[in-house]
């Protein structure tokens, strides 16, 4: 076991899997020589050679398109997009091919590949460096979308992602890349994609969240507990496909539902969860399922960004309203 933060855990996991499976190749902008702008791939080129960890020219569409071809020809590409806001140039490849190759060919060609990228904001970065992409990826059939919230989960989920027979988007909350450290076993272990985790049990309300916000919601939960409100917190871990069972069972128990996310509200990921809860647990609902989310604006550049994010206090305030409905 070793103490690792989230980005170190990603680095360790890539190293681990490259050593174990020679089909794994890692590439992207600044990924090779420098080891990535967040240093997620540092040391990999030196250790595994420039053929297995390398820099590419600046072109996200080609990076993802190349990954498609590599996966078809027997490799297990793990491509990095430098920031989620630079995924858009690759969106055509993602929607038109990454998501569809299996279905298009009725299973003849499959794409075991991973696209990693930093996710979300809160690091006082420039415009386009703080995007939350759950909806525009989650709406596309054929993709799997994973967001880890801890170093331990990052390793287990990333190993699952690389070994998954289907394309997995691995969204790494950059705000908590170095926020805290945790014991991460050196050994091999996986955490299943498509399973959520109840990170706090309670009966007052079910609160679904993921990524960096798990920690804010947890803080809110501690605050509320002091007021006698015990909330149940679900870390989704996987955005698509959703673990409907865990969510629905919890809502049936608590009768109330709140989803907390950083992404914009309208047509955002929370809407899906609320629709789901309606479909599966309508008769259990004692209060309107509620969204605590980013505003429907472009996320502000640094001086204003704190207004966009929800902290524990604002989350607690929002949850209180639902509990007192």
């Amino acid at each position, binding site marked *: 076991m070793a103490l690792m933060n989230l980005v170190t855990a990603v680095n360790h996991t890539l190293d681990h899997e490259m050593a174990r499976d020679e089909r794994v*190749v890692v590439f992207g902008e600044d990924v090779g020589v420098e080891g990535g702008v967040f240093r997620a791939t540092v040391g990999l080129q030196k250790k595994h050679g420039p*053929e*297995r960890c390398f820099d*590419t*020219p600046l*072109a996200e*569409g*080609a990076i*993802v*398109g*190349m*990954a*498609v*071809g*590599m*996966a*078809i*020809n*027997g*490799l297990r*590409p793990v491509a990095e997009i430098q920031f989620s806001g630079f995924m858009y*140039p690759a969106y*055509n*490849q993602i929607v*038109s*091919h990454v998501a569809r190759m*299996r*279905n*298009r*060919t*009725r*299973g*003849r*060609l*499959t794409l075991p590949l991973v696209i990693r990228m930093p996710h979300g904001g809160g690091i006082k970065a420039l415009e386009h460096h703080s995007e939350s992409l759950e909806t525009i990826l989650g709406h596309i*059939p*054929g993709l*799997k979308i994973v967001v880890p919230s801890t170093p331990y989960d990052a390793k287990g989920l990333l190993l699952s992602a690389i070994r998954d*027979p*289907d394309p997995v988007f691995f969204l790494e909350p950059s705000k908590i890349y170095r926020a805290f450290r945790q014991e991460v076993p050196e050994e091999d272990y996986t955490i299943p994609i*498509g399973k959520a985790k109840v990170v706090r049990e309670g009966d007052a309300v079910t609160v679904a969240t993921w990524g960096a916000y798990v920690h804010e919601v947890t803080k809110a939960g501690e605050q509320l507990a002091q007021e006698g409100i015990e909330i149940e917190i679900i870390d989704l871990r996987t955005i698509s*496909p*959703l673990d*409907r*069972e865990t969510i629905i069972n919890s809502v049936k128990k608590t009768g109330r539902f709140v989803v907390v996310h950083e992404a914009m509200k309208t047509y955002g990921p929370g809407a899906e969860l609320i629709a789901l809860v309606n479909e599966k647990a309508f008769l259990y609902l004692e209060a309107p399922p509620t969204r605590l989310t980013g505003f429907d604006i472009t996320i502000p550049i640094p001086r204003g960004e704190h207004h966009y994010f929800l902290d524990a206090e604002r989350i607690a305030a929002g949850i209180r309203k639902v509990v007192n409905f």
Partner: protein
Amino acid sequence: MLTKRFDPLKGERLQIMDPEGKIVAPDLKPDLSDERVLELYRVMLLTRAADNKALQLQRQGRMLTYAPNTGQEAAQVGSAAALQETDWLVPAFRELGAWLLRRVSLDKIYLYWYGNEWGSHYPENVRVLPISIPIGSQLNHAVGIALASKLKGEGDVTMTYVGDGGTSIGDFSEALNFAGVFSAPVVFVVQNNQYAISVKRSIQTKAATLAQKAVAAGIPGIQVDGNDLFAVYAAASEAVGRARAGEGPTLIEAYTYRLGAHTTSDDPTKYREDEEVAVWLPKDPMKRLKQYLITQGVWSEEQDKAQTAEYEAYALDVFRKIEETGEPNVEDLFKYTYADMPEHLVEQYNEYVQYLEGKVK
């Protein structure tokens, strides 16, 4: 090296056989036996026959939208003929000759245009990708496949196709550039058929040739007479050889002409003059190769007619069998989204099946 001898920036274009089937550059004529040439010609004949039959069936309302290859058979077959069995082929969508040559049988292609995904499920033993509709996007797949071959230390080459229109989209430049940087064993073939639907080649780019787009990626480029099987083959085999030898990618512009419509939904009289087509008709790649084969004494007009009739009958037969397969299986529509059907898809599928069963009752 042909790419050195024929500089697109000087307006040079490789031609070995002229429209009359006469060999005009004997020193450059590739070393192909008459038998092999005849074999390739037969694939071209089948391509043309399949086109004709598909158009006919479409007019009868039996085939859906279909994109004909007529006029481009030499560009397709001549290039793909330079590949070996284990090499990879990554087409766009108008490469019937290449598919057929690479042992993707006509029923797959017809089935695809007939509107069934199983038409893109090719046998395990062919290294050929299916039709790719988003223009240009397939080129980067080819680069990835080629680079994988290289990283694995395998000697396979990848050949990929795009149209003149497709050279304008960013994917094209990105693919050439990546291929150059990584020295990927890939050959890019542009079928310049002078049109992107209704948009003329001159509106597509101010570049005098498409071959010169190679310069931007620092890789060799050559323009060839795309209606001359020998020219296409010669350039393609040189490029394949270079790729296999670890010398990286090449861009080949096959200068040809789309004699038919863009697809069966298109009416070319809306945007081009009959006179233009009339200029190209005598340059038909079939005509000149047939003439060559007849001159060589290995083929005759009668054989040609008979073979054409046979292929058309075959194409009709293939199509009839496809019509008989009927409706697609509903489960198939759901089953291939992921390796395992997630719970929500199982639910949607089950509900739909129940609904269908309810209707039948």
